[in-house]
């Protein structure tokens, strides 16, 4: 055994030695032995702290569960939204171009950077009346193209021979046939867009797939032979023509800098005259907006981390503090700071091994339940089960646990062996030196003093509880401020709105269309409980703008305004053409609306008047018209006729009474790129255009008759007017609820779990505080405090906790709701701010109940041992 000393003894003993040297003094080190004893101690001391473990594991499970849920949501929402944008843009291809000849296609496809290229040749648009309201494009497409545009037949195959066709279920349904291969389909279309001559072709259905309404158009695939036979040129057809237009979609190895990659390919192929545009779904802005949508979820993760930290830290801090003498003993016997730290972190790790998998499973299950609820807008929400979610959530939870254990581990490692024996679980420093009081020891006073024996812990528990309560108030107030009525007025002004089949037709609205027939009008008129109606007609006329209106246009659209407009408006070139013509004094299209009843009242409502004043009685005389301007704030200068100007419509003179902001339920539909919309009374309109039929019709019915009216409309739609569109307020409300649900559910879920964590923290602190004071209680009981008094003192402590938490929560919540929520909601398009602290009011009695109940239960347990037993107890 002497080797130890000989080796050490010959060294220069005055210098400080680094640890490695010290360790070496004892000869060969066996790390396995070191690990073994640290592990043994870790596991054995874990077993000793069963209550602490339970609290810690529960906290870890909740933390992991929330992380998993949030990760699942973030992933699934990101995935679903990308999918949604892809459907909206209509293609998965990274970039697309049109007007490309066959040789050019070959060149581009053979470029090494192009990983996939699909092509399609357009024949025309299907014009069958039953397809009104849905754009159906008759095209040839290769496999790549069909797959890219989500139009690959799930049943059957793509057409090969001249008389074959593949369609989606939306089109098949509208055509009134059953989705069966071999069915005959007849499509009407215009080979020459410039003439009214329609061609009618009959095909056999050779394939179909599930249609998606979020795609802007449906594809009707025909064979290449069919298209090539019909057209003279393939590539870029003459202006205004579609037949023979060849399109391409190309994809690269990755989605970075798609526009640059596409431009490079084109210049490499010497095809700089062509233009490829980047897919909207892959644009930085889109990806950015997807990230913005998922941002609140990442904010939620920070909250979960804070809540997790507050409790796990507290649980470990309490446990280390109460075992401090044990750690001091270990240090006396030669356990180093590092080994003790490893031991505590090891305990955290061990509890994580139990808590994290349980939390992952719970979180995934919760995610499965929540994702469809949140994503109810898309028909089939994708629940992401990506292993990254579990790896990420597990890692986050483990990090939270380890960070939470860090400080307690340091505390245990730093303990000085001698001081450990004197350690009491209170804050170091800042102690009261004196207490000037002659009131004696009242129970309330003692309870209050006890509360502050460990200031840090009390603050921690109160923060943890307050966090949950304030979050709850925030989310509740935010959700409560959503205003259904405000939201609906923008979308639906009546219980039911019906639109003519041609309202949204690509080739424009036809005022002769008979969708809203006199038969339907009679049916509606005979409905029971009919409360109010509104008519909307519309026609287009061409006339030159007044000088005043032209000046208004030019001053409103100054250069800056035009530039802004250009960047947000996709159809800007056509608009600019119309605008320039109008300013030059050429004939301009005027859309004349004839309106009355519900729709007129809504469109001319106070909130929509930009300038002038609307007087219903004066308007009814038929001498006045209303102009519709852009959707801006009320102001004098607007790009239309000025108030008071006289305008002739069909040789009848009207005075402009006011300029209105456009109301979606009125103006939604196909309209020219540049027009001057005006509103005149419906009765005057029918005098001017006696042949014109209704474009839209609005009516309200009493609640009891809602179902009957809806049923009647749907039956009419299915049997007599397939292209008619029905907007009912009830389903709008449902859609609205679906839209607001996501933020509500996430918010409530987080705040409830955070509040639960707070309660767990409170319970843990209270229980451990009472257990660790067993001896002290025995002491005060031995000098004369009765059980009743002791119980009352503990109850007061609980009250104090609850009271402080509530006071702080009320103050903070009032601030958060009154200031933060007000700012968020006041600018919102569908919200009205209400001040409410309802969740806090509901939680108040619950919290007070817990504050009384927990000490009571703990005390019941304590009572089982006699005073002397407790006094004699040593650890």
């Amino acid at each position: 055994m002497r080797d130890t000393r000989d080796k050490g003894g010959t060294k220069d003993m005055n210098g400080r030695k680094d640890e490695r040297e010290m360790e070496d003094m004892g000869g060969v080190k066996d790390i396995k032995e070191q690990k073994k004893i640290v592990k043994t101690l870790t596991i054995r001391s874990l077993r000793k702290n069963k209550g602490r473990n339970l609290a810690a594991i529960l906290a870890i499970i909740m933390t992991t569960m929330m992380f998993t849920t949030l990760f699942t949501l973030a992933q699934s929402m990101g995935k679903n939204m990308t999918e949604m944008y892809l459907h909206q843009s209509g293609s998965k291809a990274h970039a697309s171009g049109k007007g490309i000849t066959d040789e050019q296609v070959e060149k581009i496809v053979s470029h090494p950077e192009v990983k996939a290229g699909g092509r399609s040749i357009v024949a025309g648009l299907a014009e069958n009346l039953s397809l009104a309201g849905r754009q159906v494009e008759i095209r040839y497409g290769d496999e790549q193209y069909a797959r890219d545009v989500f139009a690959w037949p799930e049943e059957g195959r793509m057409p090969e021979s001249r008389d074959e066709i593949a369609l989606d279920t939306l089109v098949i349904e509208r055509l009134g046939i059953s989705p069966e291969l071999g069915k005959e389909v007849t499509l009407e279309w215009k080979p020459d867009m410039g003439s009214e001559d329609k061609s009618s072709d009959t095909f056999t259905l050779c394939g179909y797939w599930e249609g998606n309404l979020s795609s802007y158009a449906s594809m009707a695939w025909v064979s290449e032979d069919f298209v090539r036979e019909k057209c003279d040129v393939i590539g870029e057809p003459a202006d205004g023509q579609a037949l023979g237009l060849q399109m391409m979609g190309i994809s690269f190895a990755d989605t970075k800098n798609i526009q640059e990659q596409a431009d490079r390919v084109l210049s490499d192929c010497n095809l700089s005259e062509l233009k490829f545009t980047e897919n909207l779904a892959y644009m930085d802005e889109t990806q950015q907006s997807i990230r913005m949508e998922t941002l609140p979820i990442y904010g939620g993760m920070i909250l979960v981390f804070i809540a997790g930290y507050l409790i796990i830290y507290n649980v470990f801090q309490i446990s280390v503090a109460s075992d401090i003498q044990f750690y001091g003993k270990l240090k006396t016997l030669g356990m180093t700071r590092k080994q003790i730290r490893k031991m505590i972190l090891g305990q955290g790790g061990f509890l994580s091994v139990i808590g994290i998998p349980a939390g992952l499973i719970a979180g995934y299950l919760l995610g499965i339940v929540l994702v469809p609820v949140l994503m109810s807008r898309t028909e089939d929400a994708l629940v992401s089960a990506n292993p990254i979610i579990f790896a990420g959530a597990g890692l986050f939870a483990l990090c939270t646990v380890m960070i939470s254990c860090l400080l307690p581990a340091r505390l245990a490692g730093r303990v000085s062996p001698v001081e450990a024996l004197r350690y009491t679980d209170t804050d170091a420093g800042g102690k009261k030196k004196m207490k000037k009081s002659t009131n004696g020891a009242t129970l309330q006073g003692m309870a209050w003093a006890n509360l502050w024996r460990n200031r840090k812990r009390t603050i921690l528990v109160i923060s943890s509880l307050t966090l949950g309560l304030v979050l709850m108030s925030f989310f509740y107030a935010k959700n409560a401020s959503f205003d259904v009525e405000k939201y609906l007025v923008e979308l639906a002004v009546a219980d039911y709105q019906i639109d003519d089949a041609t309202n949204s037709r690509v080739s424009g609205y036809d005022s002769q269309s008979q969708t809203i027939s006199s038969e339907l009008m009679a049916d509606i008129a005979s409905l029971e409980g009919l409360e109010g109606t509104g008519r909307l007609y519309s026609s287009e006329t061409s006339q030159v703008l007044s000088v005043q209106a032209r000046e208004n246009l030019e001053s409103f659209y100054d250069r800056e305004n035009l530039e802004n407009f250009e960047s947000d408006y996709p159809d800007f070139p056509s608009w600019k053409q119309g605008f320039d013509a109008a300013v030059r004094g050429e004939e301009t299209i005027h859309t004349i609306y004839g309106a009355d009843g519900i729709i007129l009242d809504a469109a001319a409502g106070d909130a929509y008047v930009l300038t002038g004043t609307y007087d219903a009685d004066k308007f009814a005389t038929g001498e006045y018209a209303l102009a519709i301007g852009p959707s801006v704030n009320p102001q004098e200068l607007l790009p239309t006729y000025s108030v008071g100007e006289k305008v002739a419509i069909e040789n009848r003179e009207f005075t402009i009474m006011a300029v209105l902001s456009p109301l979606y339920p009125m103006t939604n539909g196909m309209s020219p790129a540049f027009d001057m919309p005006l509103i005149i009374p419906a009765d005057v309109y029918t005098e001017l255009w006696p042949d014109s039929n209704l474009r839209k019709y609005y009516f309200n019915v009493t609640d009891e008759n809602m179902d009957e009216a809806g049923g009647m409309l749907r039956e009419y739609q299915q049997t007599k007017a397939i292209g008619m569109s029905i907007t009912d307020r009830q389903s709008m409300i449902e859609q609205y609820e679906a839209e607001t649900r996501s933020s509500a559910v996430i918010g409530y879920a987080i705040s409830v779990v955070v509040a639960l964590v707070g309660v767990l923290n409170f319970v843990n602190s209270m229980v451990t505080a009472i257990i660790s004071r067993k001896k002290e209680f025995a002491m005060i009981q031995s000098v004369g405090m009765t059980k009743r008094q002791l119980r009352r003192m503990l109850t007061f402590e609980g009250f104090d906790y609850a009271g402080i938490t509530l006071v702080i929560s009320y103050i903070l919540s009032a601030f958060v709701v009154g200031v933060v929520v007000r700012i968020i909601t006041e600018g919102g398009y569908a919200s009205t701010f209400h001040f409410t602290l309802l969740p806090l009011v509901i939680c108040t009695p619950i919290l007070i109940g817990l504050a009384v109940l927990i000490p009571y239960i703990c005390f019941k347990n304590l009572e089982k041992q006699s005073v002397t037993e407790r006094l004699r107890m040593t650890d």
Partner: protein
Amino acid sequence: MSILSTTKLIKRYGKEPNIVNALNGVDLTIEQGEFAAIIGTSGSGKSTLLNMLGGLDKPTSGSVKVDNYELGKLNDEDLTVFRRQRIGFIFQNYNLVPVLNVYENIIMPIQLDGKKPDQRFIHEIVSMLGLEKKLYNMPNTLSGGQQQRVAIARALASKPAIILADEPTGNLDSRTSDEVIELLKASSRKFDQTIVMITHNPEIAAQADRRIRIEDGNIHE
């Protein structure tokens, strides 16, 4: 050759105006292989001195040299390693780790040091102390005498140069006390170990090579 020495060792506890002078400039030298008994009244500074010698507590001023190491120059971590390699502690309240059984308690300091226990040597100590049948018992199932024997076995297991014992017989009856002292003496002879022992018992003190009396933080021999 001196193995333990202190120079002008001062230890004060507390702050103004309640300063306690636990040690008042102690100069002490103990030779290798010596069996020294520290005696004194309660509160005289005996335990403080022992804690200083073992590096459990830091002096206010002055220095402690153990086995040629200047303890004041070692940091906390090095001090712990130093202690587990060179010093065996025996406490009045045994300081056994309650979650470990007898055998695990005995070999714990060796394992913490990253060494393999010398099985033959451990066996020798265990049989010398009569603990063969209790190896797998948990500490709380043992009597006071048995627990103190476990603590002694633990102190000896790592073959330390110095054994510091703080009233090792304080909680034991006189027969067991005698046995424990005999064991310590035998071990010290066999392994050429230095023993510094605090005791209240004059009979035990009489068996020591040297008696050091402490009064009010000063030593008198």
